[in-house]
């Protein structure tokens, strides 16, 4: 069966949002979690990619998704 990309995508988005909240001082502003270009989320995602030397796309690509699942220190990279 084709992978349930919708569910995987949603899981990935929740993971990245949690990561941004924990380590990049991202504050969910209540708006539904949608993906618009240049919104706060995209900016924050670029911050992660820049910090870790990944390609700065602002998109939830596989390299970024792989990174946010690694064990790490609980202290923020960018203090909120």
């Amino acid at each position, binding site marked *: 069966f084709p992978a349930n990309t919708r569910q995987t995508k949603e899981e990935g988005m929740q993971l990245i949002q949690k990561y941004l909240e924990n*380590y990049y001082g991202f504050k969910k502003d209540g708006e539904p979690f949608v993906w618009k270009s240049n919104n706060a989320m995209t900016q924050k995602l670029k911050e992660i990619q820049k910090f870790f030397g990944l390609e700065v796309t602002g998109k939830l690509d596989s390299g970024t998704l792989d*990174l946010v699942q690694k064990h790490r*220190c609980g202290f923020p990279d960018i203090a909120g």
Partner: protein
Amino acid sequence: FSTFAGELKWTKQVLTYRIVNYTPDLHPANVNAAIKKALSVWSRVTPLRFIKKDRGDADIMISFAARGHNDFIPFDGPGGSLAYAYAPGKDFGGDAHFDEDETWTKSTEGTNLFYVAAHEFGHSLGLSHSKDPNALMYPVYRKFDPSVLLHQDDITGIQYLYGPSSNTNNDQRESTEIKNPTESKDLELPNSCSSNLTFDAVTTFRGEIMFFKGTHIWRKHPAVRTADFELVSSFWPRLPPGVDAAYEIPEKDEMVIFKGNEFWVVRGDTILPGYPQKLYTLGFSKDVTKTDTAFHNGIEGKTYYFIADKFWSYDKRSQSMDRKSLVIRDAFPGINGKIDAVFQHGNFLYFFSGRKQFEFDLDKKRVTRFLKTNLWFPC
């Protein structure tokens, strides 16, 4: 590397730490060792020294907990966030919290406690995360490599805050990585169970017995089986290694430490102002340039100083030092020749000469036991 906003750092060089609770994943002795080694990673490249406390408050409080644990950063279960630490400061400043939902190990399997703790103590001392993927302060946990610890980025960062270690030798200054201190050969640590064990000085100290040896001391509480092994500089950074003699004056809560023709008076981990002073200020003739060892008999109110096969005594009541020295064996029958160390424990004196130890009964005025020097350690 990066520091915290405002370059938060400790303003003192001797910091205390306390392991508040232990993970069931490891034997407590392994946790103690991992934490001590993780702190030594930073003390080797800075003037910082760390003293372990077993009760009360400490600058760096170390604890294990799962999920929510009375602060505002709950853990997230196995994986994800492994641990975190607070920047230097009072109260929870400097504290390090470890996620009990991880499997803490002392190997390359699971989550190596020493490796994570070394990273977290970087935060406790004022470093934030590094972007250098080789640095210890990089935020993501990588496969633990026991041979390499601090990268140049880490050393540059911590020395930006505290400066270099006073005893860093050249090769470390140039080296880009600090090898695992307990593996490097040049740190041949004295072995308390060696049959060749000798001491530089021995004294009581606030209910414990302190055995000085080179740059280290063993601290032994008579009621506790094991002895703590510390750097002398972790207590008194300004004291030179390899002291000659030390004795305690319990009634003043002071300890007097001798090296060459100087002596220091300390109270706890503080050297009292105005020290070091010269030996002759105690009443010795100026040709006396060092003392082998000394002890203070609080009951008699006398302090005895031993040099070669003779001794001087200072009487607190008359505030006077003997006019001339006396031969040791005349006053302490059975104790012959040069003494390395001596201390009083109850109504006995314990004399250390090379690898031999003599128990001397102050009432019977004679040697009552002939002992091994490491009698006091759980060998």
